[in-house]
């Protein structure tokens, strides 16, 4: 019995996308190293981690949503809200041990509420999370439109404590990001929930016909995304030691493009959090190179957008081709 093993190109490339992303990162890093002295160093690499850690956490969170085929554009506001609200509470004398769990809980509930509305009332995720974005940003402004400095000792400790080896510094909060990454990888690979996330993104109808808890999963991914945003907010307030209501405007688009560059399909079902993390680091490298080149920092945006465009168009072309292949075989799908 010999199976007709028909390989579709789509599959090959899909699996390759992580490789492509990794190669892209290495390529960019190498290019930087060749072009500039002092670029190639452990500290350059570690700084990518230091500066990108909050971004990684947020992007990992949003990857869950993207994997189900949804979208969450509220995360930048959630981050800002977390920063402002924590700064406000800390200034009012609430201890850090209360503040951090509280803001994380708020993030979790807020995301769950959005997920609930999206799934129960069949609203478009884009619009609901857009409203969420307005709402959180507005709440920031209600609390304070000024930047509130954070003077809490724990926060200061987290901001400054680091491990130094071979001249490179790694701040403590990088380990939070690492923990989130490992946790997310485990959840996505080794739990039923994680696999359901992929199944829902692959084919929601099939997932529900196979008896998987689609509704619970869809609510949960938005909760996770907002939770990660809140956690990213906490890390960001370590990083900046302040809360300001206009922080990180537009960050969700960076997070989404990191995920796409990292191989996540916006139609859902394909992608990895490790890819997303590399995606964040690619954007970091571009930024570093732009700085080294003394270019206007906006080149970073243009480069990432070009990269994003390239990845999306490639994805689309491959998807189109596989549709055609399927059309040929399955033309009578009516």
């Amino acid at each position, binding site marked *: 019995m010999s199976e007709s093993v028909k390989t579709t190109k789509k599959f090959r490339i899909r699996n390759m996308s992580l490789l492509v992303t990794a190669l892209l990162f290495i390529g960019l890093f190498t290019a930087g190293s060749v072009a500039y002295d002092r670029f190639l160093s452990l500290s350059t690499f570690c700084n990518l981690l230091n500066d990108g850690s909050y971004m990684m956490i947020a992007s990992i969170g949003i990857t869950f949503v993207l994997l189900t085929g949804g979208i969450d554009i509220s995360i930048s506001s959630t981050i800002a809200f977390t920063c402002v609200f924590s700064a406000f509470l800390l200034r009012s004398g609430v201890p850090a041990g209360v503040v951090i769990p509280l803001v994380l809980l708020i993030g979790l509930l807020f995301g769950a509420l959005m997920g609930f509305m999206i799934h129960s009332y069949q609203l478009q995720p884009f619009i*609901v999370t857009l409203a969420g974005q307005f709402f959180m940003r507005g709440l920031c402004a*209600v609390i304070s439109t000024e930047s509130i400095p954070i003077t809490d000792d724990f926060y200061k400790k987290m901001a400054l404590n680091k491990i130094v080896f071979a001249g490179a510094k790694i701040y403590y909060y990088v380990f939070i990001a690492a923990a989130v990454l490992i946790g997310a990888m485990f959840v996505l690979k080794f739990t039923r929930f994680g696999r359901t996330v992929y199944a829902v993104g692959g084919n929601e109808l099939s997932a529900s016909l196979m008896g998987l808890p689609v509704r619970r999963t869809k609510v949960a991914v938005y909760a996770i995304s907002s939770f990660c945003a809140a956690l990213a907010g906490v890390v960001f307030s370590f990083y900046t030691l302040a809360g300001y209501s206009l922080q990180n405007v537009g960050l969700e688009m960076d997070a989404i493009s990191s995920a796409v560059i990292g191989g996540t399909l916006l*139609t859902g079902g394909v992608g990895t959090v490790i890819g997303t993390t590399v995606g964040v680091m690619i954007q970091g490298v571009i930024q570093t190179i732009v700085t080294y080149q003394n270019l206007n*920092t*906006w080149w970073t*945006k243009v480069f990432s957008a070009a990269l994003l465009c390239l990845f999306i*168009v490639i994805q689309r072309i491959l998807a189109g081709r596989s549709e055609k292949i399927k059309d040929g075989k399955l033309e009578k799908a009516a």
Partner: protein
Amino acid sequence: MEKIRKLSKYQGFWPVVVLLAILLINGIISGGAFFEIKIVDAHLYGRLIDILRNGSKLMLLATGMTFVLATGGTDISVGSVMAISGAIACSIVDGRILPGAGQNVQAAILLALLGGMLCGAWNGFLVSKIKIQPIVATMILMVAGRGIAQLITDGKIVTVNSDSYYFINGYILGLPFPLFIVLFVVALVLLFTKRTAFGLFLESTGCNPVASHFAGINVNSVKWMVYTFCGVTAAVAGLIESAGIKGADCNNAGLFMELDAILAVAIGGTSLSGGRFSVPASLAGALIIQSITTSVYAMGVAPEITAVVKAVIVICICLFQSAEFKDKMRKRFSGHKQERTAKPA
């Protein structure tokens, strides 16, 4: 009574009623001051004029966005396109780029509009030819647009010193000039949708693209056209904005405007999944948003709180458009299953 019932059938009826109600409430709270219109130097001033004047950009964007949403798409790049058009125009007037144009204001405006058109055409290309989801397709320009604008202005805030350029945001016949622009564009649009079959094709495409294709409508070119037009309206709005601040600020020009524009159209009653649309209703929606902003400001509350109000409005509108929500509410109020309304996990 019969007349009102007939009127209420129009899509724009409820938005206009809401708009009037907001204005009325403001008038009562402010003790009439809200409706005061003063004449200074033969120019009209007052809250109502402010709303019209500040709302002009949003009205323009809402016009373009109405078409895009009617096809069932979205364009989240309009804010960035505003920044690009402002950057192009100001840089030319400033002589920073294209010195050959001799700082000519007309040339600057034309090129800015052309820029907006190209941006829109690019979005349309991605959506109709490459068939990328509209949100994703326009996200590319949204991310890149501000960067491109920055590159045009070389990263600086360009200030222009040209009275003829300021005129875009000036006064004519005692009324703000942007108002005339809006009137002109809207008249053009209404003429175009009524005089040609464009409106019919657009609604048909939004309702059922497959059946429209079967009926011989070129769905792709309809889509391409609306995105291009949306880019042009964004460029006009960008010009007004930059004339208002007398320069180009690529970071803040048109920031969040895309969201307001989508919101305005949604308030106007055009379904976000496409189909029936009404430009006047969207204009009323834009004015509602603007009057909320203005009245929150007038009440002396932090203007940022409008964001919270907007968020609540968006959700309410979406819920009322949602069949599932209506079903649940109906069940609830008809007494069945009162005890069993689902709670989030």
